[in-house]
């Protein structure tokens, strides 16, 4: 029970349907304070539906989601105020500058944005050169960094990062990993989705593999590798004789390409 009090996110028995299609099937997992939890799955596995339900964009048919003690259905605004979200395809008004976008979201999250705080946020995200540029003039990587800077603006207890390193160069990616780890040390919880097994292995404390709407494995990355290293499906897809998380992932979810 004492462990439960540390849950920043608790998803229990979640079910989501689109018409007769069951996109999410009895999914349960939790993210603890100070933990980076990876949700991995092929395209169409149910990751985005699960994330959308946590973000409050989609109402599940059954199950419960509690963020920092707030049920997302009963207390949606409190739950949303407790999380920082980076969506896969986030965009902002192309007419607004980086500073204006940060000011907008500071207002929305009720953050008192001082000049020092704004400067710190801008420099932490390497946006000094582009702070006066309009969002529509930024490169993909810069846009991604603006989006990430807004996630942490209000010091949320839970961070939801949907493929956050897509479009980032290796330096920015490493820097983001370090920032994620620093946030975890401060007690924040992070739910991360990624298609990069290298990223999952490098930063996640635990991962869940989801396929066809169901969670098929939850564990520490290395434990998953050790557990499945002798599976014939995993050995069949391994390259150069070394079993990686990617081999385990493909072994468990199949080789066919999903669209």
């Amino acid at each position, binding site marked *: 029970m004492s462990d439960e009090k540390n849950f920043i996110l608790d998803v229990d028995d979640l079910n989501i349907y689109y018409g007769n299609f069951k996109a999410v099937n009895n999914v349960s997992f939790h993210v603890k304070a100070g933990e980076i939890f990876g949700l991995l799955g092929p395209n169409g596995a149910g990751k985005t539906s699960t994330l959308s339900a946590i973000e409050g964009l989609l109402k599940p048919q059954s199950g419960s989601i509690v963020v920092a003690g707030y049920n997302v259905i009963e207390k949606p*605004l409190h739950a949303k105020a407790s999380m920082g979200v980076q969506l896969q395809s986030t965009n902002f008004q192309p007419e607004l500058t980086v500073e204006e976008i940060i000011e907008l979201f500071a*207002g*929305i999250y009720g953050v008192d944005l001082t000049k020092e705080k704004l400067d710190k946020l801008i420099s932490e995200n390497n946006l000094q050169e582009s702070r006066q540029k309009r969002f529509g003039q930024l490169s993909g990587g810069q846009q991604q960094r603006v989006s990430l800077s807004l996630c942490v603006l209000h010091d949320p207890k839970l961070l939801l990062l949907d493929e956050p390193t897509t479009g980032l160069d290796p330096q920015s990616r490493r820097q983001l990993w370090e920032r994620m780890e620093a946030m975890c040390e401060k007690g924040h919880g992070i739910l991360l989705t990624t298609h990069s097994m290298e990223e999952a292995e490098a930063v996640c404390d635990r991962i869940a593999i989801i396929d066809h709407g169901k969670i098929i494995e939850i564990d520490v990355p290395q434990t998953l590798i050790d557990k499945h290293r002798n599976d014939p499906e995993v050995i069949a897809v391994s390259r150069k004789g070394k079993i990686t998380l990617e081999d385990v992932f493909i072994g468990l979810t199949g080789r066919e390409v999903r669209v």
Partner: protein
Amino acid sequence: MQTNVPTTSTVLKALLRSDLKTQWRNRRAVILTVAVPVIILFSWRQIINQIGGAFALGSCITVGLMATGLMGYTNSIARDRDKGIFQRLRVAPLPSWAIMASRLLVQLLMIFIITAAVLIAGYSVDNIIIPTEGYVLAFLASIIGATVYLAIGQVIVGLIKNPETVNATTRLVYFIFIMVGMFGQLGILGDVIKKYVIWSPYGTVQTIVAGAVNPSKWTNTTTEALLVTIGYAVVLFLIGIRKFKWSSK
């Protein structure tokens, strides 16, 4: 530790500030929206005495309201939905209605600008003098009339997801309203068309705005047009809100 949720007024203020900035940065489109009715009014200089000042002001304000409601509002909603701007706002701690309320408040400002520009142009170019209460009522009638076009826009973004298709549809509807509405009401397209146009979303708005600028000529027909306008707005908004999806995916 308790999580604090910002007040709705704080959120609305932040949204409104950024929406006004966005509108300001698109001022070329705003100028064009205002310019069309003013140019029409200018071009009618020679026939003002025949058609009447109230009719001319009513028609031109209606054209401006159509442009801002149908094209300005609708296309910005379609674009922001398609780009995922709404989705990012919806994962933040704010009620969804606040996003739309801010957009509508910006439109309210546009309505004031258009109405003021046409009234000023009417006075300075065509020497149309209206009573003081006519100015106040003209603004009120413009707000009521604009809701019809905002509601039509809401139906269009409710039924169509693709922003390019939304853009094309709003232009088509705008063109039809101007061509059929304006010429039809002038009687150029015959009596049958004129009868239909008078009770169309173009005709009823034109009637109430024209009635508002000249309150002494307000008739039962103007009151009926007002009721029909409100009816259009309510029904169309209900359909538009019901059909609207926050994401185009």
